[in-house]
Each structure stands twice: as structure tokens, then as C-alpha cells.
């Protein structure tokens, strides 16, 4: 498949910062959406995105085009978000602090807080799968490559993730 990012990637690999800035511009919101929906925190997501782009910039010389640049970048983004989550778990101060309220974090977005609350309750594998497929529109093949599982597993995760999400939303609605 032709990679629409290839010309910019080639320039960036030669050290062209302008080309890399165009790649940041092109992917920043999708990468941020992925991180924010999976982490449930705007600040942590922005940190993860920053880390991901820095890793991508430093890692560009090793990118050989075996996959789409966006797939490679999302993979780095998922790892960076995962690291943020681990950091949250291992920092004692975070445990004593009140968890951030996603409703505050996302007040300016069109996302309903109920949905983010429900996403936060999904297993990480399911959350990543539904966000990549239903929110970002990535293909089964790409998600399978990103998450290193078979396409069938991707479909199963999306199905279960969606079902669980609706179940949580339904319970929440019933309680209100």
C-alpha cells in the first residue's frame, strides 16, 4: 500500500525538521485522541503524545517503511500511553491523590463524560481496540499489526469491548 506520508518521512529521515513538523501536524490530533481515550486524562495524553513524537523523531533513522508510517507512529503512541499508565501506578503520590475527573478533563470536547467513564472501565486491550476501530477508523489488519494479535482477536476484542461499554452505559443510565 502506498504510504501517503512517505515523501515527508524520507525528508525527515534526512534531518528535515520542517518535514517532521508536517508529520506532527498531520497526526497530532489522532494520536492525541488515541492517548486521551485510552488514558482518560488530557494531561497524561498530551505527555504521551509528546513522548511519542520525540521517540519517533529519534527512531526515524530506523524506520524502514515495512508498515505505514502512521501504524509505526501509533504503535509508539500506544507504548507511550502504556508507559504513562505504568507511571501513574508506580508513583505513590498519584495513589493518594483524587483521580482526575474525566468530566473536567474533557469539558471542552464533544465527548460525553459518561462514555469516557465507561471507556475507563474497559480492559486496556478492549479499550485500545474499540478506540482504534470505532473512533479512529483503522482497519482490522492495521490494529492486528499494532497490537500483535490475529485479526480474529481484534474483532473479538471490538465486539466484547462494545458490548461491555454498552452494558456500563446502560447500568449508568438506569442508576441516574
Amino acid at each position: 500500500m502506498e504510504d501517503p506520508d512517505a515523501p515527508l518521512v524520507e525528508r525527515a529521515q534526512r534531518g528535515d525538521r520542517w518535514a517532521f513538523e508536517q508529520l506532527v501536524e498531520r497526526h497530532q490530533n489522532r494520536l492525541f485522541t488515541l492517548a486521551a481515550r485510552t488514558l482518560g486524562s488530557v494531561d497524561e495524553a498530551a505527555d504521551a503524545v509528546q513522548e511519542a513524537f520525540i521517540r519517533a523523531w529519534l527512531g526515524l533513522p530506523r524506520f524502514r517503511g515495512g508498515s505505514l508510517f502512521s501504524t509505526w507512529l501509533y504503535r509508539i503512541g500506544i507504548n507511550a500511553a502504556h508507559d504513562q499508565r505504568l507511571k501513574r501506578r508506580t508513583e505513590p503520590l498519584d495513589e493518594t491523590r483524587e483521580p482526575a475527573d474525566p468530566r473536567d478533563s474533557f469539558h471542552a470536547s464533544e465527548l460525553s463524560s459518561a462514555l469516557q467513564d465507561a471507556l475507563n472501565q474497559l480492559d486496556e486491550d478492549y479499550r485500545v481496540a474499540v478506540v482504534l476501530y470505532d473512533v479512529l477508523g483503522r482497519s482490522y489488519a492495521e490494529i492486528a499489526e499494532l497490537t500483535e494479535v490475529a485479526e480474529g482477536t481484534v474483532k473479538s476484542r471490538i465486539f466484547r469491548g462494545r458490548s461491555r461499554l454498552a452494558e456500563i452505559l446502560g447500568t449508568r443510565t438506569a442508576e441516574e
Partner: protein
Amino acid sequence: MMAETHPHDIELFEYVEDELPQARRDEIAAHLATCGLCAEQVRQAAAGREALRETTLLELPEGRREEILRNLPQPERSPGERRGFFSKQLLAGIAALLVVAALAAVLVKTGGNSSMESSAGGTGGGAAEATATSGGGVEDARTAELFASGPAEDVADDLQRKGFKATVQKDRVVVHGATKAQVREALADRGLGDVEVVVKNP
């Protein structure tokens, strides 16, 4: 009465996505008509899909893009340049040539065969000295890089559990006293990622 064997999640997913061949779709539809459990799962999956698809892309907060671009570090080497075996080999070769030249100069100065033995013995010492003085060139020839899915602490823990001397240094995992092949094999189940693993073979 409970219906026959329930379809797998994958098929129920494909039913929701309308990706099944018509014949199989009809079979699943017949099953759903008699199986409340599966019908409820399908209903929920469809509802979940609708909820997710109502969402829109979020925008990176104001100022973050500039912060990212401002904080991009200088690459450790010019992008596009291979951090590779050949450049390290070249450095090692230059270092070795310098050592030989230095030894030749010493031989010319001291003269005589009697010094040959000590000079020959001194080759090792000279090389050791070259390692110390020319630093990275020679040492780099004994290092190798791998990349594994992270985080770095997990990779190091993984390697330590497998008996390697692995530490995390500046977000990289440094492994001493092993070969690249050994480390690669030990990390095979982690898959390719962006954590740099530096193998230093004594």
C-alpha cells in the same frame, strides 16, 4: 429452549458489521431469534458501536504542538545515517591502525630485536591502552543494538529474570556480558518496539 451452539464472538461481530455471507447471516439471524443471550450481546455491541461513533477527534491542547517541536532533541546522529556495523568497524579499524603506527614508532626509536618480544607482548597492552584512550571506537565494536517493546524497566526486568546483567540507563537497556544473538533470543517474545537495548560484550 436454548438454541444450538452459540456463534463465536467473531461471527457475531461480523453479523453486526454486516460482513457475513448471506447464507451464514441468515443462520445467525435464525439463532438470534431463539437465543436471548446472543441477541442481547448483539444488541449491546450495536449500541456500543453507535455510542463510540458519535465521538469526534480531540484536538491536542493549545501550545502542546509548539512544546513538542521545541523539545525535539538533536538526533544522536544525523537522521538517515546508519548507526551501523560498518561505521563502528571503521572506527575500530582506525583505532587499530593508530595502535600499530604507535608501536612501529616505538620500535624504530628503541630498535633491536630484544625489544620485539616485549613489543609483541606490548601489542596487547597497546590495544588495551588504545581502548582506554581512543574510547568509544574500540568499545563500540563490541556493542550491538536491538529494539524491543517496552517500557525499558520491563525489558530490563525480563532480561534479569533470564539471567542477564541488564540495567536501565537513560531510557535504554544496557546488557553486559552477553552476545546480541543471546539477547535477541531472550527478547523474541516481546516483539519489536522502540526501547533501545544496547548489548556490550566484554
